[in-house]
């Protein structure tokens, strides 16, 4: 059924022009929108990245994380399968797991000691039959009727995803063939190892960060380092893949040093081309073409909160979690392959200097969302303009486009019903 503007207002969503080229700034600021996103996106027909299989290798291993704002537990049971459930006791609602990760035979809520197995089933109610024949639960009380919400769990390429939806496609179909191929390219056939992790707190709405990940237009304009050292120029070979539903994307570049650098930057006299900028120790940019396809940079995302990045030989998974309307948590997990040589592992450690909060290449990404969040503070009735590269959300052989950002909004609006 066609929604009217009145319906949208009833739904607390801003009126939205019938184009992917406009985004009302209100969606970064409204608490009502924020709450609807939890219901319609995170608890809707989406696959949410939760953790790595490498973090859950043994029976009893568990990780506590989030689907949007919902606390969840992912655990490997003794049957070898992964299970996920809401981290909320069926009794009074307290957190069941209080640790970020660990190994356990089962869980016990600290508040009244209700016991849970690794699948999130209630296995015992303390004092169910009372004490000395007094108190206790009513006869016929069935603890099995009360359980935290269960997740569907799916894994692909060592990545663990969860959903509350019974209707969503398989995770591979959800991500789309072309993007899945690029996940397999990095994670498909070699066992992974976590080599470090941390959380970055972003002073902005989660969507501003996720748009930034999908924004191939900004990369060589905001980030001087890439441009000057020819890691990533719009004039280099590369391209953009957007999944048919808009939710997933890949931006990539292939170094081709035989081709003279394009003159577009100089002609526009952009500040990003500084010939005098030379490194004392450029060896940290050394790159081994492990996969043999010459791709030096690949940034990939899956709606609503998964990012996989390769810059040279550094590999990182990012989980985007909304905390407040204007506060986002970004969980970084650095990866290596379990069979890395010491030399290659050292290269990965050194290349981590390119990304993250102190990333020489992309530290700006942590701050730029906050610039927008503050910039639009009194501009609720205005909209962002996304016309670079046209109006559609299609794949292309240029990255001078905002097609994948429009793809994000295409997916977002479908889930939100606007």
């Amino acid at each position: 059924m066609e929604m009217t503007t009145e319906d949208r207002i009833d739904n607390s969503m801003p009126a939205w022009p019938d184009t992917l080229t406009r985004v009302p700034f209100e969606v970064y600021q409204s608490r009502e929108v924020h709450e609807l996103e939890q219901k319609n996106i995170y608890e809707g027909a989406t696959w949410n990245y939760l953790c790595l299989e490498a973090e859950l290798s043994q029976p009893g291993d568990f990780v506590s994380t989030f689907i949007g704002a919902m606390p969840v537990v992912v655990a490997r049971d003794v049957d070898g399968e992964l299970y996920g459930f809401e981290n909320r006791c069926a009794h009074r609602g307290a957190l069941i797991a209080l640790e970020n990760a660990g190994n356990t035979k089962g869980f016990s809520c600290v508040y009244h000691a209700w016991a849970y197995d690794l699948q999130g089933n209630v296995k015992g109610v303390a004092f169910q039959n009372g004490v000395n024949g007094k108190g206790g639960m009513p006869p016929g009380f069935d603890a099995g009727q009360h359980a935290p919400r269960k997740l569907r769990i799916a894994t692909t390429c060592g990545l663990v995803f969860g959903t509350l939806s019974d209707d969503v496609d398989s995770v591979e179909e959800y991500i789309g063939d072309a993007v899945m191929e690029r996940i397999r390219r990095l994670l498909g056939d070699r066992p992974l190892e976590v080599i470090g992790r941390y959380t970055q707190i972003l002073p902005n709405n989660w969507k501003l960060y996720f748009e930034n990940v999908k924004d191939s237009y900004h990369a060589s304009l905001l980030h001087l380092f890439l441009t000057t050292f020819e890691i990533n120029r719009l004039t280099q070979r590369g391209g953009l893949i957007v999944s048919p539903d808009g939710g997933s994307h890949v931006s990539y570049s292939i170094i081709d040093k035989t081709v003279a650098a394009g003159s577009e930057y100089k002609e526009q006299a952009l500040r990003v081309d500084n010939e005098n900028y030379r490194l004392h120790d450029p060896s940290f940019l050394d790159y081994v073409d492990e996969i043999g396809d010459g791709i030096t940079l690949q940034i990939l995302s899956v709606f609503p909160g998964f990012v996989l990045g390769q810059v040279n030989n550094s590999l990182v998974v990012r989980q985007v979690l909304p905390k407040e309307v204007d506060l986002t948590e970004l969980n970084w997990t650095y990866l290596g392959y379990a069979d890395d040589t010491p030399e290659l592992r050292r290269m990965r450690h050194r290349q981590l200097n390119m990304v993250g909060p102190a990333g020489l290449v992309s530290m700006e990404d942590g701050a730029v969302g906050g610039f927008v969040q503050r910039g639009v503070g009194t501009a609720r009735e205005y909209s962002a303009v996304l016309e670079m590269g046209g109006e559609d959300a299609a794949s292309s052989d240029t990255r001078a486009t905002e097609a994948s950002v429009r793809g994000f909004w295409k997916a977002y609006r479908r889930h939100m019903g606007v």
Partner: protein
Amino acid sequence: MDQSDVKQWLDAGMYAQLRIDRFNAAYARCIDNDELEAWPDFFEEGCLYTVTSNDNHQRGFVGGIVYADSVGMLRDRVSGLREANIYEAHRYRHLIAPATVLSSEGDRVRAEAPFAVYRIMRTGRTDLFVTGRYVDTLRLGPGGEVKLIERRVVCDSSSFDTLLAIPL
């Protein structure tokens, strides 16, 4: 205290601690006064400078916020901040507590010093930005000079706000 008592007291490590504390005070002053070009000079060639969380440190995960294993990489970080990276103006105030000397071998000394770093934004907003400890290996040279062979900046929290442009 006669002269031999003083000598014994100094030999017992107090002299090393005084030298390290003085070194750390100069290190903090260098960063907080925005004299970053001099910051790499606190390190030896072939040094190791890392910024990571206590969690990574305990687990033996090397991948953190910063990993630099040459003075050149430190110089590149400074020139990156000066010429390449875009960030809102801000500065730090380091408070470094007295060091604990853990062990020494020849002129190499292992020491730890806890710190707190406040961040002052261009708006005037001042926040406690990071707390942690420096886990160091230093060389206390015969001529009074002190250099870092290794400085692992082990932050107490695993969460980092917005960005870490200026070094800790």
